């Protein structure tokens, strides 16, 4: 079982980490949230359907992050997640870089569940069904909310478009 758990860690840690980072915008807190989620996974490993490990873990990670957000004082300053992008990639032009950074900030600025929807569906590439299971939504809700989220993102990107 320990080997299986290590396999789950290898497979899902990056996704849990990315989701936690988008929601919490704080590396240390995101690490703690991920660890809590994986501890829960270890403790409930026998009762979870192996086919549904990923949605279960994403759901627990998200709920843990939202609990942390609720516990934060309203006046608390959040560390802006704006890492310098040093990796070479297709986003070479200055304008593209600017847009990419703007998109990240816009996703960060989305309200829940829009932010998790975008991260899970557009970044993690989860299926609609899986996203619905993680967020406790039905399929029409997933599609509607995703449409609204993308509309907001398009509008915010349009502001920086030349």
């Amino acid at each position: 079982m320990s080997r299986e758990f290590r396999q789950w860690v290898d497979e899902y840690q990056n996704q849990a980490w990315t989701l936690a980072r988008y929601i919490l915008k704080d590396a240390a807190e995101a690490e703690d949230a991920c660890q809590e989620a994986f501890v829960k996974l270890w403790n409930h490993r026998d009762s979870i359907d192996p086919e549904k490990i990923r949605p279960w873990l994403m759901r627990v990670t998200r709920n843990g992050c939202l609990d942390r957000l609720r516990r934060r004082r309203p006046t608390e300053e959040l560390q802006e997640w704006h890492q310098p992008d040093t990796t070479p990639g297709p986003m070479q032009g200055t304008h593209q870089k600017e847009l990419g950074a703007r998109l990240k900030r816009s996703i960060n600025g989305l309200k829940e569940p829009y932010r998790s929807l975008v991260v899970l569906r557009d970044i993690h590439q989860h299926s609609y069904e899986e996203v619905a299971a993680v967020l406790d939504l039905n399929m029409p809700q997933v599609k509607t909310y995703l449409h609204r989220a993308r509309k907001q993102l398009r509008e915010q990107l349009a502001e920086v478009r030349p």
Partner: protein
Amino acid sequence: MNKDYELAEAELDVLMEQLTIEKAPASLTRRLKRIPREERSRAGFWSWLFPDSFPRWAMAPAFAAVPLLVLAVVLMQPRQPSPAEVEQARQDLAVAFAYMDKVGLRTGSEIKTVLGGELRRGVKDTLSEHMPFTEQSHKEETT
């Protein structure tokens, strides 16, 4: 308008594709891989006490039974009475025996009074009926 929308949507798709899943830091990977060992050592005693096969619904009654069990064990312990209690018990017993003696004497005299005359009369009548000389001898005796 429709063309603008499609362009914006396409641009968003392209940008979204650039947003890859971030690699978790090594510190997190280390923390996550330590979980099985840490959880096992943390849960050592409890997993011994309540193995996985122990039904969860039975946890609450099991915990509730613990104080009752302790109380029962305490109450079942044999206890030596104190000298004062022994003395008190002895006095109580003496009073009880004295009372029983008194009652016994009184009851005995009552029985003697009521039954004694009746018995004597009954025996005398029966005897004088079958043996008339006894009446005579009785008279002689009394005179």
